[in-house]
């Protein structure tokens, strides 16, 4: 006999299956849409690939997609490395030392997690202009490195991951505090560094708001900005835009495929502890 539990199980799998199709359908259609002539996109649902891939690629070449790609890689990689170093150092300091104002400073970080950065965007632009950063990619690399969530989470991680005994024996051997951080603490913090690095790569790679405001020189455009420009330029070429975005998604999907477990675990542990 077919048990009740089998039917329950079937319904569960069906439900999750349908939700999952909804989750990936837009991805799938993104890949398909990039192979069509733009005007054909609005004629029904696209299940199979079209025959306009080459032409769309040619359109992308006209807007220097390679320059945008290079800028995006430069920004996202430097931003995530800087974020990891800055937050790991802060987390290590908070977790492994006693010092004056430690509690208040840590509470301050927690509070800033609730303050959206867009609040200061007007003065941020003025500041960037004043220090001459508007003609560079630095506004997209340095400011996001002070990631409140990152510092909080590195502290939590360092508390339980770095054994005090190892640090003490290194001190007895005459190791400086800075070397203890780079050679002993950092290796223990690798899992947290990977997750934070991925997360800030993702945020930086996908970011539109900040680049839209601080970057005006087309030579410095990141991909989201460049793709947007394709929409407002001479004509609306949705298909070429979408192909560009498909290419944009590849690094993210690749990184995710490699590190999905650590990313998901990291994100969820932060919420449980917070």
């Amino acid at each position: 006999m077919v048990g009740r539990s089998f039917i329950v199980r079937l319904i569960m799998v069906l439900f999750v299956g349908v939700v999952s199709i909804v989750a990936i359908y837009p991805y799938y259609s993104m890949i398909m849409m990039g192979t069509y002539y733009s005007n054909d996109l609005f004629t029904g649902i696209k299940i199979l690939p079209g025959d306009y891939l080459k032409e769309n690629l040619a359109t992308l070449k006209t807007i220097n997609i390679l320059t945008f790609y290079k800028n995006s890689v430069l920004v996202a990689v430097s931003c995530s490395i800087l974020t990891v170093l800055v937050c790991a150092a802060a987390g290590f300091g908070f977790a492994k030392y006693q010092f004056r104002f430690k509690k208040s400073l840590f509470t301050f970080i927690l509070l800033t997690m609730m303050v959206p950065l867009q609040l200061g965007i007007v003065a941020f632009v003025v500041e960037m202009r004043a220090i001459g950063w508007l003609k560079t990619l630095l506004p997209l690399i340095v400011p996001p490195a002070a990631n409140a969530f990152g510092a909080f989470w590195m502290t939590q991680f360092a508390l339980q991951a770095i054994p005090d005994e190892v640090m003490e024996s290194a001190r007895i051997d005459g190791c400086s505090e800075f070397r203890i951080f780079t050679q002993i603490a950092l290796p223990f913090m690798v899992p947290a560094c990977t997750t934070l690095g991925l997360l800030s790569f993702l945020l930086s790679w996908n970011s539109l708001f900040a680049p839209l405001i601080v970057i005006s020189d087309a030579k410095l455009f990141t991909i989201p900005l460049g793709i947007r420009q394709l929409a407002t330029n001479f004509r609306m070429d949705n298909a070429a835009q979408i192909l560009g975005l498909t290419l944009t998604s590849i690094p993210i999907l690749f990184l995710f495929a490699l590190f999905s477990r650590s990313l998901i675990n990291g994100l969820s542990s932060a919420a449980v502890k917070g």
Partner: protein
Amino acid sequence: MKESTGPTVLRRHSRSGRYAPYLFITPYFAIYIAFSLFPIIYTFYISLTAWNGFSAPVFVGIKNYLTLVADKRFFGALTNTLILMLMIIPVQIGLGMFLAVLLSSNNMIGKGSFRLLNFLPYLTTPVALGIIFGIMFDWQFGAINQILGALGLVRENINWIGKPWPARVMVSLVTIWKYYGYTAVLFIAGITNINPSLYEAAEIDGVNGVQKFMRITVPLLKPTVIFVVLTTMIGCFQIFDEPLMIFSTAGSSSMVGGPEHAVLTGVWMIFDTAFGNILRFGYGATVAYGLFVFIAILTIGVNRLMQRREDLW
């Protein structure tokens, strides 16, 4: 926070060690103060001026704030944000929690793969989302209207991009689509943290699945629920990239805030006021502060309410 036992040893062995913790936290605070805190404070000064960003700013005192409290568009943006919150948060939490329960159940197959698939939307570039959903929600030929029509759910096509309420529903759906998998992952972590002996004890007492969910799972997920509610609320103020793309793809790039400004959110209003067709840095800064006060009051209030109302749980 757990206290470390390091410092006593530290003081005995090295003098430089006393300054070490400050050196470690300095880069973080230097960057935060220079590029986040300073702009936030300086924005307050700008909010007291009339300034186009180029000529010399003129100090006008609280004049901008008087304009703000009479600005219909500002209150429109606040109302929109509240409407979006009310449409997004319940679905986000309901769907996320339900999916999490299914994906943590022993009766489920392929849990790992389903978790990954549902997490994918969180990774999408907002610009891509905007363009693709803009096409999918197209009035005449979009996939959504075709599916709704084929299922017989609507008699005529819905003008998602051209009418205020459909536009709000569309923006809510896009946001929910992007974040429900992420929310589910957070709830899965919460469920994994629940002590299994609670469920075992309930089973011995003959409690059924629904009761177990209502009496054990939901109450113990309270911290996660609070986290999701607060972050989603702040997130609703920041909805910007996707609608910006949807409504500039759909037609004129001048459709600020969508049809009749129905999806003009807080951040979009700051952007448009300060950096739109007319540069108004002074008033843009005022809008930012007005929004901040509103977000602060709202999040603190909701947090208090959720922490206190034990009977709800």
